[in-house]
Every structure is written in C-alpha cells, then in structure tokens.
C-alpha cells in the first residue's frame, strides 16, 4: 500500500488551484483577444442574444422611472420647451430654404468643375435607451440595431453636432461610443484657420486637439468641424469649440482642450448617418520605381 494515497473523502474534481489557474488564464486570453485583437465580436453577439431578454427586463424599471418623470413634467415646462422648439424650427426652416438653394448651386458648380458629386446620405433616427454600466468607458446603447440596417462605424449626430460613432451592433440594439470616450478620435478642421487636426476624447467629458504645434493658429472660441478625411464622417459637421489653448515652451505640442458642440452626454434622440460614399480609388502606384527609390530616400531623411 506504500505509495498509494487514500481515496478522497469529498469529490471535488481537479485541485482548486489548478482550476483557478486554468480559468484565470482563460479569462486573460479572452481579455487580450477582446481588447487588443477584437476577435470576439461574433462570440459576444452570440452571448448577447442569450442575455437580451434579461437585459430588456432589467431596463424596464429604468424606462418606467424615466417615463414617470416625463409624465409628471409640469405644463409650464412643456410650454416653454414647445415655444423653444417652434422658434428653433422656424430658424432651421429659413436655413433649410437657403440650404436647398445653396445645394442646387453647389451641384451646378461641381458639375461645371467636373468634380465628383456629393451623395446625400441615408439616416436613421434612434433613441438612446441607457448609458452602458461599464465605468471605464463612455458608451450608450441605442434602440436600433442590425435589423434597422445599422452598421459598425457609422457616425451619429444630434441637432447640434457630432455625438460619436457606432462601435458594436447587436440584432436589436447598438452601442454608441461617445466622442468624449478616452482615445476616441475624429479628424477635424479648425474653421477659422482651416487647420486640420485630430480630436481625441480625453475622458473627463472634454476633448483635446492633439499633435498641433505650439505655435499653431488656434484661439479659444474657435469652432472645430469634421474634415471628412476619414471617409466616415461628412465634412463640415460641428464637433467642438476650443475652450483654451495652453502653449508650453517645454512641450512640442500645444495642449488644447475643447468643449463638445453636441449635447454629448445629455440627449435622448440621435441621428445615425449612413455610410458616406466610398473614397476615390488611390492613384495607381508605379511599383518598381517606388521600391527602388525607397532605400535611397530613407537614408537622407534619417541624417
């Protein structure tokens, strides 16, 4: 009997420590493949179908609270809101009339210049159901998903400007990442100076114009609009206003915090814009010449 261990009294399967290590490694692998490699979207969608009924049931109390507060909203407040909306619509109507005329003119001029015509985009109105609970990011859940034709990567705007971008699409819902989410980026242009830059969310409800030289032509109060260089956002949508400009001689780049133009963290209805027309094909490259020149060109650049 020497060398034989007694049978275990309580059957527990594999040793707890082995199980712990196995599951820790498994969840780490999941984390890496989700955060860094983004392999797991199909897996997530599959699981989300399972979780959907429970999610919907859980969202009901929040819905109820919101609807109840709407219901008891005072008459006076609604009247004020109504007046405000009417005023806005009148203003908007006047601008729309002009816009129509301008678009007509634009089309005409473009055809004269033989430039590519801008295509109108199809858009979908969606309602924000709730803020995602994950405290590490700024995301909201919309009530329209793949069934309403929404795709990942679409731009989302409200009446004042760009709100964010669709990052995940489920069958009945979609996840909208707000512009203020950390490291959510959008290519922009400063209206006054025509300077192109990239605007990043900085995480605290603000955004930041990064990689602009310390002497860049930016002033507090400048309007920042989309430049449309990414092929996702239409050009000219308002994004933010420059809050202040901190120029530090020790730094290469200026620090430029911006305030979002749209009510990025406090809206209920948004417009999901359809995909823009595809970018023009790249000009054909002359392969052999480029590869030959590459080696020679790279060296002087380094010196």
């Amino acid at each position: 009997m020497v060398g034989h261990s007694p049978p275990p009294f309580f059957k527990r399967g594999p040793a707890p420590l082995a199980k712990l290590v196995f599951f820790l490694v498994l969840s780490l692998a999941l984390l890496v493949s989700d955060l860094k490699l983004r392999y797991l979207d199909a897996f997530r969608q599959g699981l989300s179908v399972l979780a959907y009924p429970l999610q919907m049931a859980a969202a009901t109390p929040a819905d109820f609270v919101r609807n109840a507060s709407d219901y008891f909203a005072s008459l006076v407040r609604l009247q004020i809101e109504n007046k405000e909306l009417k005023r806005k619509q009148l203003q908007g109507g006047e601008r729309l009339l002009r816009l129509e005329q301008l678009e007509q003119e634009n089309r005409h001029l473009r055809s004269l210049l033989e430039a590519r015509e801008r295509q109108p985009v199809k858009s979908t109105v969606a309602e924000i159901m709730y803020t995602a609970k994950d405290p590490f990011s700024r995301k909201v859940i919309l009530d329209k998903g793949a069934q309403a034709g929404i795709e990942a990567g679409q731009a989302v705007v409200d009446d004042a400007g760009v709100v964010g971008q669709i990052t995940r699409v489920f069958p009945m819902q979609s996840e909208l990442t707000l512009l203020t989410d950390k490291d959510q980026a959008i290519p922009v242009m400063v209206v006054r100076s025509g300077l192109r830059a990239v605007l990043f969310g900085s995480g605290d409800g603000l955004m930041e114009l990064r990689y602009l030289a310390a002497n860049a032509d930016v002033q507090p109060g400048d309007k920042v609009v989309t430049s449309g260089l990414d092929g996702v956002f239409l050009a000219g949508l308002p994004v933010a206003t420059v809050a202040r400009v901190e120029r530090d001689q020790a730094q290469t780049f200026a620090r430029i915090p911006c305030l979002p133009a749209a009510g990025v963290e406090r809206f209920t209805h948004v417009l999901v814009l359809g995909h823009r027309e595809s970018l023009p094909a790249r000009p054909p490259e002359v392969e052999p010449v480029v590869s030959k020149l590459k080696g020679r060109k790279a060296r002087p650049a380094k010196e």
Partner: protein
Amino acid sequence: MQPTNRSRRILLPVKMWFVYTTLFTALFLNYIPTGHLPAVPDFVALVLAFWCVREPLKIGIGAGFVFGLLTDIGVGAALGQHAFAYVLVAYAANELSRRVLWFTPVEQALHVLPLLFLSQVVMVIVRLLAGAEFPGWWMFFGSFVAAVLWIPLHYVLLLPQYQPMDRDDNRPI
C-alpha cells in the same frame, strides 16, 4: 451536512436550483442600467461569494467564470473582465469558507469586504493596463455597500433551508 459552524441549527441541504435562481436574480440586478451612478454594489459578486462560502463543494470557480462572462456581456465591459475578477472571488471564498462560517454575520461581512474590494481593484488594474480612463474613487464605494448587504442576505438566502421538512405542531421546540 454536518454542522461545521457556530449556528446551532442543522440546516436542510441546499437546493441547487435555488442557488442558480438567486445568481440569475443578482445578474438581473446587475443588468439594471444605473449608468455611472457611484456606489452601486456588484450583486453577482456578492451572491457568488455567499454561495462559495456556504457551499464550497457545490459551487465555485466554474460558476464564477460563467456568470462573469454574462455580466461582461450585459454591462458592455471588456469580455473576460468580470470573469477574471469573479474567478478570484470564487476561489478565495471557497478557501475561506471553513474559517468564515464560524463567525457571526457582521464578522462574516468584514471577511467578505476585502474580497469584493480586491475584485474591483483587479478590474481597475486590468482596464487601466488596456488604456481605459480611471473611473474615480467613488466606484470602490460599491464594495462597502455590498458588504453591508451581506447581513440581510445571510438571512434571506438561507430562508429555504430553515423551513422544516414536515411540520409537526406537537413538537415542543
């Protein structure tokens, strides 16, 4: 089971369907969209810790992993973030169960608090390493609220096991 703790009452054996029902109820509570409200306790971690302490032979790391994944899906977190934390909670609660059960509910809550706190710290570290923003210190308040909830939970979740199997009106006790 033999009475391994100070409770003088011999409890009925636990029913596994009840364990899973309470876990799913906790999942439901976690799914309620409270947005970025601070100090919302993590119900699944709490209930999981409870059952891992009470029934270390029946529930443990595997359940922690599965419910962690379900939580990740529901709250829009990174896949594996809650799973990682819950696996740690389940393991530690299983290991601690022989010690914790000797204490009164209030003292048990004090044992569980560091567990829940640690699970939050682990999640913060994982997400910060991946480049997320720091959500603020208020988030950690949730585990203190959860530890306070342990005391009522201790009675609520054991209620079915307190029921006598057949009621005898003539019994003296």
